[in-house]
């Protein structure tokens, strides 16, 4: 085989922070192949037929859970699903006990979403399984960042040197943190933009520009990633009203037309239409929102395939 012995440098995917630029490139190249598989008449390969994966979600999710489940099935893995709301967690079982009970049923990998930051890291130190973080509180959401960067690469040819503005609720967003780390590792310039109250005080230490004016951010960027206002995480009032937020930080057709260039619009979903982005922008040809969803399956297949190959 001429194929090189390239491998991921990590056993788990807990966050973009642990990945090296080479790992991300390897994931992208593998995802290219899986995207090809997904466009065939028969969209399935037998690579993971002897692997069992548990999807445990302690927090609601539609897109990510479906995307992971589909990725697992396309790789022929066996899957079990677990939602915390209908489980023994409500009877007071600890996280480690819950997961060890699942592992006792001979499960190889865990895909977990949890409301607490660092839950995946904690778990990886205490149980004997490979962990894929599907979002941990306001900390990281690595597969989302990977599929975002992959979609930028697909649309613009490369990520390196591109200017990406992440706009909206940076404070509560795991997507923002993972995206910043991922894009910086790939050599993109990153700017965050939002109301002062929703931008963490020391965010510039991550090597990003900070801008409080949406128009300036749009003028600067090649790609605008519009984040969702996370109404469920707003435990206090960070801005006076949704209407005011929408007027100052919402992206609409008029604003887009006033720019003297075309920019690419992204959104991790679910979209609050009329709040951070209007329908005519979300559905326009500048938007790659649905490409992001499509690429999500290929990226997750690549991550699971590459991690599974590290099990001896």
């Amino acid at each position, binding site marked *: *085989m*001429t*194929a090189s012995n390239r491998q991921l440098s990590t056993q788990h995917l807990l966050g973009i922070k642990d990945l090296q630029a080479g790992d991300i490139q390897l994931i992208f190249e593998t995802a290219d192949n899986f995207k090809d*598989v997904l466009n065939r*008449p028969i969209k399935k390969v*037998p690579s993971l037929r002897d692997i069992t994966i548990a999807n445990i979600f302690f927090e609601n999710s539609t897109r990510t859970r479906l995307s992971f489940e589909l990725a697992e099935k396309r*790789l022929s893995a066996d899957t079990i699903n677990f939602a915390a709301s209908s489980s023994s967690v409500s009877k007071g079982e600890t996280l480690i006990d819950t997961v060890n009970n699942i592992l006792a049923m001979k499960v190889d990998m865990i895909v977990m979403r949890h409301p607490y930051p660092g839950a995946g890291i904690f778990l990886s130190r205490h149980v004997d399984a490979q962990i894929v973080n599907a979002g941990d509180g306001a900390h990281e959401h690595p597969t989302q960042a990977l599929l975002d960067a992959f979609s930028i690469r697909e649309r613009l040819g490369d990520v390196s040197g591109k200017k990406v503005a992440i706009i909206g609720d940076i404070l509560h967003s795991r997507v923002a943190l993972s995206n910043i780390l991922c894009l910086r590792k790939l050599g993109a310039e990153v700017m965050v933009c939002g109301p002062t109250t929703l931008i963490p005080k020391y965010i510039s230490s991550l090597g990003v520009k900070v801008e409080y004016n949406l128009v300036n951010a749009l003028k600067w960027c090649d790609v605008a990633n519009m984040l969702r206002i996370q109404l469920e995480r707003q435990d206090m009032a960070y801005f006076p009203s949704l209407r005011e937020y929408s007027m100052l930080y919402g992206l609409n057709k008029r604003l887009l037309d006033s720019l003297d260039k075309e920019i690419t619009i992204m959104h991790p979903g679910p979209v609050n239409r009329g709040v951070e982005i209007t329908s005519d922008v979300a559905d326009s040809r500048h938007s790659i929102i649905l490409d992001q969803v499509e690429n999500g399956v290929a990226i997750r297949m690549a991550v699971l395939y590459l991690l599974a190959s590290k099990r001896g």
Partner: protein
Amino acid sequence: MKRSILLEGQKFQITIQRLCHQLIENHADFSDSVIVGIQPRGIYLGRRIAEELKQIPGLAAVAYGELDITFFRDDFRRKDSGLLVPSSTSMDFIVEGKKVILMDDVLWTGRTIRAAMDALQAFGRPEKIELLVLVDRRFSRQLPIEPDYIGIQVDSIDSQRVIVSWDEVDAHDRITLLTEKDN
């Protein structure tokens, strides 16, 4: 390390042309047949044969594709070499009802060919699958797979290696048998 050259130069070219003519005997105008090179090293043989065939009047439209079998291998997570990195697949036709000629440079254990037959199912149900190899390492099969067209046959032991080099990538056409010194 001892190197012995099994085939090169004009003889190499004659072998390729003989394979082409054997194919024409069975497939006539190739209207129902497609050629598929197996990634990563079978594609050079596939491309060479497809090109030779296209020179022949009436065969300019021979269909040629390249198939990656990485995800269909049965040694995933078993190889010491670690991860199996995929190459690209380009099959811009459906093989449903077609006669498929799989091509690979060296046939050894037969496991690659088994995986290729599995991988091919994703593109439809072929009427027939044939196998063309440049080098057949005899008596070393681990699966009941035999080629329909053979460039040369080689008797070798497991510790030996057969390397096919191609003008396009390695600067010369050559088949080499490598033997460890202490054998």
